């Protein structure tokens, strides 16, 4: 322990923990590296050696620069927690795109960054070229990114902590997760990973068997099963081929993916409660109720309109083409089994609007899903009902409104305000992104569809996203995915910190 006062403690704290998270993710590049070696893909293996070396060196260097954090036991406060989470996501976006660039499958650094951010945020939009001929190593990396991103990079790094660090919870919250399953955040992070890994084994096994039944070779069925499960559970939407779910031509495969992405979209707190034996939570939880109502309503509306207009004529095709895509949008997964042009040409304005609403609402808070979340919709809805009841009640009466989410919670004005603010931020981001799409000449419905897809971290495309799209639009989409995933606050904190620093030294 040294007695000298640390100069610029903020720099030390941010550098150390950002470096720690980067180092943790860099080590994981060993998995695609081993995959490449096993598959005798020597060039991709070399790509991963280079990428891993660069990332490990940068991570270690940052930890070294901020080493006083450890020796002087500097504490992380809320501001730093948010900044570390936001900064590590940006740095990892650049570092994790190196294998893409070296593979020659992306046209530019921007396209590589777009795909990495799409993976991390579990969006699923793709700018990678010639997707059907990617190496196994790069495919493994793409799907790992979406699986890690779903659970959270910070969550992963925290679960490997040797000892508890002061303020770990604040970094964890910076990643848009705010639920403590157990009092210690390190064990909370481990529980999140435990649930996901158990599902990973179970789901991959189920899809592996199904893949072999539909005619894939055992190795191919295993790899496809692993990739698709990682994407489904993380509500990601990546697939190892350009045709996405249409590649499999299988009703059984589609139903299994529905089960997995529907299970991937609830709150980790809900999973943990059920695994602790509290089975009634599945019925009582306000987020489950909200998802049940909105998904049934939106599916019914879309089926009603599209079956009436003769686009899909029987119940099976309605379920496979309409309900599948509505659920995929609502859980923010992004698996699709209709072509982008079909959304534009066959679904009509009503169908597109249903999809936009589903994508914006999204899944559950503290889950792998995006969107402004069912919990916030329920809270604001209950807040409105409460205000109406207050107006209609005698002036002296006091009403206590509750909602059930893991436990009974009292609905106060602060909670309603916080939820409404996040929804407003999402809507403003959606509007700006739509506006930019229309500025570049895309029709309003298509711009809105794509904007909802990036803002809600969904990944379904109506055809706007492509390598030929304007660079500024790609940057806006990256920003929208990033803001949507981290739920604004962390990114605002990072911007505020940088702008504050510039003003101070100007």
């Amino acid at each position, binding site marked *: 322990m040294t007695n000298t006062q640390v100069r610029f403690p903020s720099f030390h704290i941010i550098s150390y923990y950002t470096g720690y998270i980067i180092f943790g993710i860099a080590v994981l590049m060993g998995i695609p590296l081993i995959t490449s070696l096993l598959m005798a893909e020597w060039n991709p293996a070399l790509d991963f050696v280079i990428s891993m070396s660069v990332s490990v060196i940068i991570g270690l260097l940052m930890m070294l620069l901020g080493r006083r954090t450890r020796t002087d036991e500097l504490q992380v406060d809320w501001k730093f927690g948010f900044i570390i989470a936001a900064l590590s996501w940006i740095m990892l976006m650049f570092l994790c795109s190196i294998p893409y660039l070296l593979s020659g499958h992306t046209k530019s650094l921007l396209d590589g960054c777009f795909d990495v951010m799409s993976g991390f945020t579990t969006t699923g939009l793709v700018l990678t070229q010639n997707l059907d001929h990617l190496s196994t190593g790069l495919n493994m990396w793409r799907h790992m990114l979406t699986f890690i991103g779903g659970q959270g990079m910070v969550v992963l790094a925290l679960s490997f902590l040797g000892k508890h660090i002061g303020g770990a919870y604040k970094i964890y919250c910076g990643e848009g997760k705010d639920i403590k399953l157990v009092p210690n955040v390190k064990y909370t992070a481990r529980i999140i990973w435990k649930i996901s890994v158990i599902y990973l084994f*179970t789901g991959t096994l189920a899809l592996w068997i199904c893949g072999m039944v539909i005619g894939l070779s055992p190795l191919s069925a295993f790899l496809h099963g692993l990739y698709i499960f990682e994407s489904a559970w993380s509500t990601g939407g990546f697939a190892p081929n350009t045709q996405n779910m249409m590649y499999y031509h299988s009703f059984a495969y589609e139903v299994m993916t529905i089960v997995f992405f*529907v*299970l991937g979209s609830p709150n980790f707190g809900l999973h943990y409660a059920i695994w602790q034996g509290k089975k009634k939570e*599945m019925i009582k939880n306000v987020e489950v109720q909200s998802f049940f109502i909105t998904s*049934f309503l939106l*599916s019914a509306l879309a089926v009603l309109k599209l079956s009436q207009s003769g686009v899909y004529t029987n119940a099976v095709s309605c379920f496979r083409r309409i*309900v599948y895509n509505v659920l995929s949008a609502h859980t923010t997964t992004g698996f699709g089994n209709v072509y982008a042009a079909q959304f534009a040409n066959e679904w009509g304005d009503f169908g597109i609007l249903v999809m936009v609403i589903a994508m914006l609402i999204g899944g559950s808070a503290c889950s792998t899903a995006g969107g402004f979340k069912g919990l916030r919709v329920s809270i604001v809805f209950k807040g409105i009902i409460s205000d109406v009841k207050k107006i209609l009640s005698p002036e002296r009466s006091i009403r206590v409104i509750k909602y059930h989410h893991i436990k009974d919670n009292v609905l106060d004005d602060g909670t309603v305000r916080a939820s409404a603010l996040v929804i407003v931020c999402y809507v403003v981001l959606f509007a700006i992104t739509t506006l930019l799409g229309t500025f570049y000449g895309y029709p309003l419905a298509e711009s809105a569809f794509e904007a909802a897809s990036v803002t809600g971290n969904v990944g379904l495309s109506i055809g706007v996203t492509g390598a030929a799209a304007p660079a500024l639009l790609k940057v806006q989409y990256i920003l929208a995915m990033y803001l949507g995933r981290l739920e604004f606050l962390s990114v605002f904190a990072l911007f505020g910190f940088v702008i504050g620093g510039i003003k101070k030294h100007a």
Partner: protein
Amino acid sequence: MRNKKNEVEGLMTEVVYAAIYCGALFALVFLIAR
């Protein structure tokens, strides 16, 4: 041991609920689009 049993039961419960949910959705579609 008891934890393991709870976890297996929890996993099965979730999968069964998700399957029931899919079935209910299909029934709804069948009613609308038959």
